[in-house]
């Protein structure tokens, strides 16, 4: 599939104190960013676990970005630092799995940086577009009868696959 016809799906785990507000600011200022970005609001990026990032990729996301506060400005002191450690761990795991490690990225942004959010989001979506569709089939079977997380719901609005 060519980069022109491929419409990626990107999950953005955004801290409500910075990136989520920055995305809101971008919207209010009519600064557009790609519709590929599906935002998940978190109280802090320290809430984003390795497992949730993997599940997003397993459930069909072509890329995952974790967007936290600027270094040293986390409202909970170290949440964004922990998030970066986890994203680094995920990128190592992706290499072992056989996926491109560029499919997961951590960015740091403040609530006042609406334009920069749009810029960084666009840059990541372009990176994912160049990588092409994730080889993981959408809604791959996971979970089961013994207490697993259950079969993943398919992501909506997926086109060009």
């Amino acid at each position, binding site marked *: 599939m060519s980069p022109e016809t491929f419409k990626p799906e990107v999950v953005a785990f955004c801290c409500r104190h910075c990136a989520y507000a920055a995305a809101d600011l971008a919207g209010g200022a009519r600064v557009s960013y790609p519709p590929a970005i599906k935002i998940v609001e978190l109280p802090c990026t320290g809430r984003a676990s390795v497992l949730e990032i993997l599940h997003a990729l397993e459930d069909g996301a072509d890329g995952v970005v974790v967007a936290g506060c600027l270094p040293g400005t986390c409202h909970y002191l170290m949440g964004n630092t922990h998030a970066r450690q986890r994203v680094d761990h995920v990128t190592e795991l992706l290499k072992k799995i056989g996926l491109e490690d560029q499919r997961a990225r951590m960015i740091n942004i403040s609530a006042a940086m609406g334009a920069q959010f749009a810029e960084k989001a666009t840059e990541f979506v372009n990176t994912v577009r160049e990588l092409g569709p994730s080889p993981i089939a959408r809604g791959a079977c996971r*979970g089961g009868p013994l207490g697993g*997380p259950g079969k993943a719901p398919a992501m909506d609005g997926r086109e060009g696959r």
Partner: protein
Amino acid sequence: MIVAEQKSLDEIKAMLKDAKKVLAVGCGTCVTVCFAGGRNEVGVLSSSLRMAREVDGDSLTVDEVTVQRQCETEYIDGLADDVESYDAVLSLGCGVGVQSLAERFPAMRIFPALNTKFMGYPSEHGVWEERCQGCGNCILHLTGGICPVSRCSKQLFNGPCGGSQAGICEVDPDTSCAWQLIWERLGEQGLIEQLMEVEPPKDWSTSRDGGHRRIVRDDLRLPDGEEG
């Protein structure tokens, strides 16, 4: 606690290459605390295995369950109804957990996802250190609560070797000399004299050298005719 770490994903993938449907079983005790085989690690490994198989152009079903203690039959009995529907069981328990599953479900192939390393404790976040080798004859009362069996690289019993330099073991620059620690601890307690007593050679027959070990407690065994 028993401290373990996960085998490489490639090694686990190779073990499971013929399986299409796998049950990953975590353990809620030691390996949960050392972040090797608890519910979260079961989830991450299962997800990684499913995606790795997809990348290889195939598919793998990995269902996930974590029992409270994999090393006791009572806790794994609950898997009996479902386990036969799987091609293999991937245990994220320690070696005891793997063997408990293998004894309980002898017809099932049980694969170990972890390497069991030692009995130890977390000295800081993300760092675990060995503290006990289960030698079967504890002498911690003589050594200020610092074990020369597990912490001295040469398992010496009468002071440090010549490789102890500035409190560091010659085997590894990140390892403190156990005998330096023992000397300092007993010095602080005013018990240096205790070290002047020469320890005779240790009887290792209580350790692994004596073969497979077993403890029998008659006061706890069930009377004849009573079922557990």
